[in-house]
């Protein structure tokens, strides 16, 4: 089972905090990979909020192809960042790890954000299609104020490999996943967190309802609903579909993946809508065991579980900084000075939501509405 480590804060912090928290949960991951996703970036990206950042890995050949492609599409490089690689035994260094901020192509600069998002997703998918067959290009995200790093290896070693203990790279929301490789080959596109148009999730556990969910999402006509090298990628796409495509408030994500029973729905004030959703979005029901941690474009961070098997999760912190982890020890490592009596262990009806800038944490309960 993978281990999840999310921190959201009002101030910038280093991803090493997440990695060190993962280290305390080490019995739960086998060091087969680390995925890092940073949102609301500080450091050298602090003043580049409006510029989409392309995060990925390329071979030398892939880099040339990528650069040519981006120039051809009218993207102009605004800023480049790459980790200061420290060779580490057991981690195979690839040619280029990159995060490049671009200026939008001229015709898109004044377009609405939704159109820009579609352009960015299309571009990411096209680059993926070009580079995936020979693994010359991996693109994890292409979106403003989002930076993603992924590599195979022990999380702490990967963190040091990327030089994150020295690098001033910081952000206000950082997700990290320590991978426990189970039924899928170690492949970078199978590594959490997953991202689409401002929405991200990382999950642990297995998704027993994966195939029907994948088939339902694939039929929604969104080219971004693809990949699925991991059965957990659907969690991100369900979030995107629920909140962006259908426009439902965030709490309905919980109602979609773990719908209430008919008699429970009767207790909700929005029962009429909920009954319709339950039928219409029935194929998106999960059966666990899963713990899902995600963020939305506006900076809300949440944790929720399946309704039966309940992969564990703990949320704790202080105003201005909260940690959402697979285990209590991870929370202790990230935010040791806190009132532990206020820690939250979400149960089957719960969705823990931390507001932007870690202002406040609320537990939304499916039944209390």
């Amino acid at each position, binding site marked *: 089972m993978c281990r999840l480590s999310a921190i959201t804060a009002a101030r910038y912090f280093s991803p090493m905090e997440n990695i060190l928290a993962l280290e305390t949960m080490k019995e739960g991951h086998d060091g087969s990979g680390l995925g890092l996703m940073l949102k609301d970036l500080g450091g050298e990206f602090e003043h580049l909020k409006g510029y989409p950042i392309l995060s990925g890995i390329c071979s030398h050949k892939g880099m040339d192809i990528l650069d040519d492609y981006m120039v051809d599409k009218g993207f102009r490089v605004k800023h480049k960042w790459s980790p200061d690689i420290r060779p580490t035994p057991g981690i195979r260094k690839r040619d280029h790890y990159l995060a490049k901020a671009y200026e939008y192509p001229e015709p898109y600069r004044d377009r609405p954000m939704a159109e820009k998002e579609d352009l960015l997703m299309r571009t990411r998918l096209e680059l993926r299609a070009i580079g995936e067959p020979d693994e010359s290009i991996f693109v994890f995200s292409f979106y403003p104020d989002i930076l993603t790093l992924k590599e195979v290896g022990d999380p702490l070693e990967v963190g040091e490999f990327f030089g994150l203990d020295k690098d001033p790279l910081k952000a206000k929301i950082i997700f990290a996943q320590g991978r426990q490789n189970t039924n899928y080959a170690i492949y970078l596109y199978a590594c959490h967190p997953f991202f689409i148009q401002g929405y991200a999730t990382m999950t642990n556990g297995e998704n027993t309802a994966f195939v029907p969910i994948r088939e339902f999402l694939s039929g929604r006509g969104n080219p971004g609903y693809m990949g699925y090298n991991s059965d957990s990628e659907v969690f991100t796409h369900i979030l995107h579909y629920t909140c962006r495509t259908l426009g439902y408030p965030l709490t309905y994500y919980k109602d979609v993946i773990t719908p209430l029973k008919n008699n429970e729905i009767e207790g909700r004030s929005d029962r009429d809508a909920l009954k*319709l959703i339950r039928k219409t979005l*029935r194929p998106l029901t999960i059966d666990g*065991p899963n713990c899902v941690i995600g963020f939305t474009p506006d900076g809300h961070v949440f944790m929720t579980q399946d309704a039966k098997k309940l992969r564990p999760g703990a949320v704790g912190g202080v105003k201005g900084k909260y940690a959402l982890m697979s285990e209590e020890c991870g929370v202790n490592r990230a935010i040791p000075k806190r009132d532990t009596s206020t820690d939250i262990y979400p149960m089957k009806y719960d969705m823990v939501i931390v507001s932007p800038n870690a202002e406040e944490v609320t537990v939304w309960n499916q039944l209390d509405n």
Partner: protein
Amino acid sequence: MESAGQLIQSDELTYQDFPYIIEWREDRCTRCGKCTAVCPVKAIEPTVRTQRVVRSEGSTPVPTAKRITVSVVSQSRDIERYCVGCGTCSMVCPTEAIRPVYNSHHRFLIYKNKGGNAYTRGGRRNDPSPSTVEQLKFTRISMLTDPALDAGRHEFHIRTLLGRNLPPEQLPVRVEGRKLVKDAEAFIPPVREIFPIRIGSMSVGALSPHMWEGLAMGVAYLNEVEGLPVVMCTGEGGIPPRLLKSRFARYMILQIASGYFGWDEIVHAIPEMKEDPCAIEIKYGQGAKPGDGGLLMAYKVLKLIAEIRGVPQFVDLASPPTHQTKYSIEEAVAKMIQAMSMAWGFRVPVYPKISGTRTAQAVLNNLARNPYAAALCIDGEDGGTGAAYNVSMDKMGHPVASNIRDCYLDLVKQGKQNELPLIAAGGMGKSGHLAANAAAMIMLGASAVDIGKYIMQATANCLGDEYNRCNLCNTGRCPRGITTQDPKLYRRLDPDMVAQRVVDVFRVADTELKKIFAPMGRSTELPIGMSDGLSVSNREIADRLKINYAC
């Protein structure tokens, strides 16, 4: 040496030509005559024959030969009176002196065309080999990385939806504050939440009053006492008026077929109905006899049936192979589905049932485009019937597994797999594994399955099998009293016992479905289309159904 002509008549068949040979034990038989009296086809008869007996008696025994006359039970060699193997003789025999034995070398079909009459019968395809669905196994077992559920402890939602589900993008909801609100005026197509195994269409006329009553009582009990929303389809010909106007009508799917029998009565009863029916099934085809019509023999059209169907007594009731007023699927969809929907104010799901066919996807795609079509039921080649030509049953039709799979994957391509439910019928539980067959079809993409033959076998001990045993449904002489209108025969059947067995069957199916879904980690929703859970040890089937090959 005598000539062969003196030994046998060349137009006379031998016992070896017959599918069942009567094994009669003279030493046990008391000559009570029950077996010959009860035989539904007069395949056995009491007769006498001379016998040479050699006895040695006296103080110095000397063998003495005598010819005596003995009474025996003899099997007819008349092809019109062939032994059907029903075994009713064995059932009544007090000394276990008689039984039919299957003869695998028989040449029955070669001779069963006497008088130029093609062989007709009831039952289903005579092919005892395991069907495709029977070969599917559940191989995605949750182990360690994904703890299995507990079938006895966890809550399971073994329910399916019958009706047209709106696509999410078209749901009439809007955000108000942080909540979703449904538009009050919006039309929502009717959708029923039912148990995923249904009792398929069998008419009041085809079944005896006791059988039909037993099924209906069992279904009502399951709903009202057990909380299992099992529904049954009436078949063509309507239902008794009291039932139609009762609150139990909501457990009934009313079928309209090409003869439209009973529909004048139903339509006139609508204003008096307390409850809407569960659904309306428009029968376009039947898996057992694809492209063929229906026929209720005149001798089954007794007073009650004539009243329900709105016809005179004792006339043959033929339903034509097609709906005579329709000439295209567009018309069928537009007229029938919309007309039926309108009759109940668009509160009742209306869907067609077709026989399995290579053209099923053409039908499917037409339905997918019609927002009122509530489902598609496909009846495969293993479906049963009360009466059909043997050639239709044995050789016509399409296996249901690949038909359903193709249709499901077609819907997946269109993103409509949750909008138009598929119902699989034909051969479910043929080998006794009802829940496993149902679960396999669900994982291939069906939303529900129908059973017919299985429920007759399980609840009323129907004798029919795929070795052509019994299969007398069409003659009105059903030895179990299931498919007959003869009171002497249907009195053999206790409707309360049938109802009890219906309840048993569905309670067990519910338990077994949980025992299948729990180790696969599924409980919240029916695993429709969870094809990664299935495997088969036949490469061609695996490729065709796009499932795993495991061996």
